[in-house]
């Protein structure tokens, strides 16, 4: 009898300690809700404590986004940043992410961080529509990185073409995914331990590591012609949908390869996708900017890569404070002239 009593006490104690340790060192509970268009999104107002990479404590706004409460500025530009986890930036505190960096530097801009981990190009129209329903949008930045090509094709959903071979619709409805997560929502919303274990189990079953993107160092192979065609179709479709809401610009975050003495170059795959995106942007008459040279300059100056964190990995993973500042500078340089025009009474 004593054995069973001890076992029960030990199990409870371990669960309790596990919960405390997980909250302190790994992650907070993941209070997410299922969204038919965007997958899992954060519940409004929840606080997310992120320690896997970096150390960020951020409260989500009413749309479940990593930003301050949504508001509109009557004069000046309301700008939406659409992107994945690189834009969402849970790894750093709010004031250090590139959306906030740009907003702080610019007197005329309200920069809305609408990044969400796991989002790909195909999800952006839905997100933009939701924002546009709340505030006037004057400009949309689509922030893409080296992994977005694959992510976009993976999350392409159902593509509908017309008789002329023109892409006319993308259906990205999330239907039967994450059924376990949905059924046991109460546990996962309140237990960091359960959230962490579920994530590990999922990654184990999928045979992936925590940082699939970050540790992806396999040799690069050019995508096939059909993949390139499909990506171009999606890119054209998404940007045209976004353009119906506001003008669109592309910002590309490449991956660097580092040498000693502060030298660095764009990785082969990053350079390839950068040129693909530049070409597609040109075709769609969309402004394109790459953060590559800003990253290279930052590394040369500080001998610190713009991605990676001491507690996860250097040179890999998400943007750190230096990386966010480098992206933020691109945004500031692009938006500042508009602010100057506004100050002199010109049009934005």
């Amino acid at each position, binding site marked *: 009898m004593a054995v069973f009593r*001890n076992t029960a006490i*030990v199990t409870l104690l371990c669960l309790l300690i*596990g919960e405390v340790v997980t909250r302190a060192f790994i992650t907070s509970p993941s209070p997410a809700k299922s969204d038919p268009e965007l997958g899992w999104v954060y519940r409004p107002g929840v606080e997310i404590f992120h320690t896997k990479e970096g150390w960020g404590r951020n409260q989500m706004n009413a749309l479940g986004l990593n930003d301050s409460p949504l508001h509109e500025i009557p004069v000046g530009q309301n700008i939406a940043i659409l992107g994945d986890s690189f834009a969402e930036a849970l790894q750093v505190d709010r004031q250090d992410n590139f959306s906030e960096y740009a907003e702080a530097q610019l007197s005329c801009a309200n920069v809305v961080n609408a990044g969400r981990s796991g989002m790909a190009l195909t999800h952006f129209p839905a997100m933009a529509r939701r924002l546009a329903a709340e505030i006037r949008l004057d400009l949309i930045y689509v922030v893409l990185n080296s992994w977005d090509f694959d992510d976009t094709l993976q999350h392409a959903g159902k593509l509908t073409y017309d008789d002329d071979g023109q892409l006319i619709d993308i259906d990205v409805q999330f239907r039967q995914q994450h059924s376990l997560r949905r059924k046991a929502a109460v546990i996962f919303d309140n237990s960091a331990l359960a959230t*962490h274990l579920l994530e590990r189990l999922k*990654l184990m079953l999928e045979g992936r590591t925590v940082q699939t993107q970050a540790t992806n160092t396999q040799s690069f192979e050019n995508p096939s012609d059909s993949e390139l065609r499909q990506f171009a179709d999606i890119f054209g479709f998404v940007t045209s949908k976004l353009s119906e809401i506001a003008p669109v610009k592309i910002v590309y975050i490449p991956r660097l390869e580092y*040498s000693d003495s502060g030298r660095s170059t764009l990785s082969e795959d990053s350079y390839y996708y950068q040129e693909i995106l530049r070409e597609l942007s040109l075709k769609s008459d969309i402004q394109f900017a790459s953060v590559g040279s800003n990253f290279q300059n930052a590394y040369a100056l500080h*001998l610190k890569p713009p991605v990676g964190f*001491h507690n996860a*990995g250097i040179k890999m993973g998400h943007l750190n404070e230096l990386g966010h500042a480098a992206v933020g500078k691109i945004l500031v340089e692009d938006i500042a002239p508009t602010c100057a025009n506004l100050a002199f009474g010109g049009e934005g």
Partner: protein
Amino acid sequence: MIFTSLSFLLFFLSVLLLLAVFKRQAARTYILLIASYVFYGWWSPVFVLLILVTSVWAWAFGLLIDRTDDEVKKSRYLFVSVAFSLGVLAYYKYAEFLAQSFYAALGWQWTYDLGIVLPVGISFFTFQTLSYSIDLRKGKIPVCESPTKFMLFVAFFPQLVAGPIVRASDFLPQLEKKIRISSKNIVIGAQLFLGGALQKTLIADNMSTFVDPIFAEPALYSAETLWLGLAAYSIQIFCDFCGYSLMAIGIAKMLGFDLPENFRMPYLSRSITEFWRRWHISLSSWLRDYLYIALGGNRKGKARMYSHLMITMLLGGLWHGASWNFVLWGALHGIALAIHKIWDDRTRDYSELKATPLYSSIAWLSTLTFAALLWIPFRCVDFPTMQVYVSRLFGGADGIDWINPQVITLLSVVVIWHLIYQFKPAVLAKFPSDNPERFGVQFALGISIFAIILFAPLQTSPFVYFQF
């Protein structure tokens, strides 16, 4: 199929179940032998044939050695047996290295790929067959008449691929007794296994995510980061190999076998000689008994003794891998052992001074620093990388700073563990306990399992010593 994988867990539970069902000694021996070959074949079924041939060869020549009274013939049989085992090892492990070195010596460019795949654990099972043949020839052990038992001795899966290197004199007598699956052994073995898994998954695997990128590109990192990388690797290789050995010992214990201790807190050593008495004990004692003493040991004068030491350590280095880095590592250890012997001789009259805490502390720190620095040639993939590492380490180089808090936490954990071992050994002596009902034991086990589940990296790194 590594010990920390789900496939191994299922495999092991199946073996335990079969052993529980079939109680006859012969059946259990066959079950363990087949399981061992399945385990080995998991990597490459072809090499099961190699281990089978190696075993049968050593067993058959063992019989020939035993059957004849002619001392010359005995020696010839031994020579043939040993030459075959060493020939197989040389072909698989050193052929390409020797050819490359030969080409390099002549200034030619090596552009070939011999396509030789190194069988996992070949260095370990070769040394086991060698020890059997040599001990048999010396009359230290009786011949093993049963091919099944001999093959199980060579292929026993808990220690097959990375040791501990088991002597025939230790293992074969255990096969003469009844293979006993008892709850007591399972409880003790499970604790040993868990202790090893903690070292492997929680410490070594987490360290490797920090160590690998640093040793891959030392030119990028600052001197401080390289020092931290060196400390991390010193702990990684210890916890990886010590953890593996402990898991192997635990698995064997659950199956009713006792394997020899392989590590005894080597980083607490106060001399390099002591370090080798505590590090990879089964290999160092093998090298001592079958190489150093066979060469003459210290029986042929001081000068010869130092040369014997050098030869032993050079070959010991080469045993770890076919690379000049390992040769350098072995040579430096050989030189250090020789210097320590000279120092020991000349300071024999200062035993009181040597017993002081100050002397002990200096001796411990210098031994630890030396052993850690020698991991650089051991870990770096080639000489140029090693040169970059060393020059930046001591040159105060600028570069990327990566002061990883997890690594520092784990280093602290290991330091505390060593301090407890040194100053409060009674705490650690409670484990493994044969009383699973004790609350403290259950709590320690529960927390250990939880720690592994929560913090172990999802992708387990292969054991470092598998490559040897």
